[in-house]
């Protein structure tokens, strides 16, 4: 099998994971104007929670759902317990979530230690998938599938449901929405929990092929930031396009300049910012 197909598949599967994580980030950012720098830490916690559940005998899907619910509850606590006090002040919100990120990261180190873990996947997803002369790990193809399904689900949620319509309206003008008698506060909380749940789910998905280790949270956070900076805040399509771009850059960068892989994301981000400071699909507030 040619290297290029292999790399393309690697990029696509990594993009799927990035999308799951970054879509949560961009939803919260777009609607609530909150940049949740604890998003990477929530990803890591999701992964570790999934690991613990599967070590206690839960199967892969139970771990994934359990982690998503657990992290959604953490999101609820962060939103109601902390962010409430700094409402309306973007700078204080960001720095507060940065504080939360440090606390959670260190807490994860206390609870799960500094070793590298990998979440076990079901046996039928283990091993390579062979089709003609293409051989590729089954699990990574599964991640791609889940990423696409989540994109469709989120798109349906945003485009076809009342909640989605309210979220979209809130992204554009939350004051008017609340003036029309909608309890926007509740929608904010749902969105925050949904965004956190996506981070937690991403943690389990990623924890099974990228492994979990103490600095995994900042790595995924940088990638998510790059996705949102490129894609523009609050846009699902932007998150999808951004994920694909960032994943390709990261993968091909790793092949061509293994030591400077991080650096490769930087160039396009720079060019993009020069022409579109709000990202490809971002709208001015």
């Amino acid at each position, binding site marked *: 099998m040619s290297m290029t197909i292999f790399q393309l598949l690697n990029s696509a599967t990594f993009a799927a994971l990035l999308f799951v994580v970054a879509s949560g980030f961009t939803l919260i950012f777009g609607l609530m104007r909150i940049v949740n720098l604890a998003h990477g830490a929530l990803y890591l916690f999701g992964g570790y929670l999934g690991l613990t559940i599967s070590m206690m005998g839960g199967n892969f899907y139970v771990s994934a759902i359990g982690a998503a619910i657990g992290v959604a509850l953490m999101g609820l606590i962060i939103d109601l317990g902390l962010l409430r006090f700094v409402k309306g002040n973007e700078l204080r919100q960001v720095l507060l979530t940065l504080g939360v990120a440090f606390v959670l990261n260190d807490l994860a180190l206390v609870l799960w230690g500094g070793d590298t873990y990998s979440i076990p996947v079901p046996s039928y997803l283990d091993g390579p998938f062979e089709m003609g002369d293409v051989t590729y790990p089954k699990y990574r193809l599964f991640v791609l599938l889940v990423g696409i399904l989540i994109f469709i689900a989120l798109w349906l949620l945003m485009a076809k449901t009342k909640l989605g319509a309210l979220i979209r309206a809130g992204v554009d003008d939350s004051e008017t929405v609340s003036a029309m008698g909608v309890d926007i506060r509740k929608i904010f909380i749902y969105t925050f929990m949904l965004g956190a749940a996506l981070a937690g789910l991403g943690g389990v998905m990623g924890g099974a092929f990228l492994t979990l280790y103490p600095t995994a949270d900042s790595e995924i956070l940088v990638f998510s930031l790059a996705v949102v900076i490129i894609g523009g805040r609050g846009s699902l399509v932007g998150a999808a396009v951004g994920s694909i771009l960032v994943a390709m850059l990261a993968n091909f960068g790793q092949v061509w300049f*293994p030591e400077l892989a991080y650096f490769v994301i930087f160039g396009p981000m720079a060019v993009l910012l020069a022409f579109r400071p709000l990202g490809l699909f971002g709208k001015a507030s």
Partner: protein
Amino acid sequence: MQTLKSKYSLLIVVLSLALLVTVPLLFPGYKTSIATEILIFAILAMSIDILAGYTGRTPLCHGAIFGVATYVMLYYVTEMGGSPWVGVLFAVFASILVSIIFALLAIRTSGVYFILLTLALGMIVWGVCLRWTSVTGGENGLRGSVTPLWLQDKVTLYYFIASCFVVLVWMMWRFVNSPFGLTLKGIRDSESRMRTLGYNVPLHLFLGFVVSGFFAGVAGALYAFFNSFVSPSTVALAQSTEGLLMAIVGGAGTLFGGIIGAALVISLENIVSLYTERWLMVIGFMFIFMMIFAPSGVLGAVRNFIKSRQ
């Protein structure tokens, strides 16, 4: 600080200088080293305050700019066998270069986007330092003394750093109170007004960023004398965050707040580390606490108090 009568200001300056001179007598032994560390990080915190407090752009990349200087210093002196003084020049030059690249990108953004972008830029430096093993030594970092023989004594090193500190603080004080610095304040308060008045806002932001990066770079180069070791954690987000925390604890937009912040944070770090290894968690909680209860910091609170009395 303008609200304080100049007589009191002079008194405070004299007392501070007296304290600076007597530190090795008041705090002998390893405490002198802690004081040295406080002075270095105070420079970093004040350089961050130039942007965060005076320009209204909160950066999360200054740990990277600081650490680049430390890396260059150690690489030039220990790997290439150069003189430490030439190393300082190269180190500061490298920091300025990094600042120029960061500034060109970051000044296009403001508010939260500025934080995000500088965070991502800083993380890229961290990623490069971690992975570019042949130059940076990867996770092991670079080790080796860059300190000339006459500076090896802890007290001499303290006085050397303290002298640099006084000069740098004076420079920064002059900078933020210069017409240029006042323009930055004007941009912080209302960018559109300054633009209407005919100021070249992007150019001011760019230069403000690079000046701030210059001071962070000098602090990073001095840190090499102090520490003789650099690893990716020197350029990591935690470093940028700690610097910003010092600026905020002291009071953003007060410049000298950075000194108080650095003293508080580093003293606390040394006390806490006697009992627990959970320093990151403490920093995190401090951030949460500051943001909820005391966002204007120590000097900010003093200033508000004085204003309310007048």
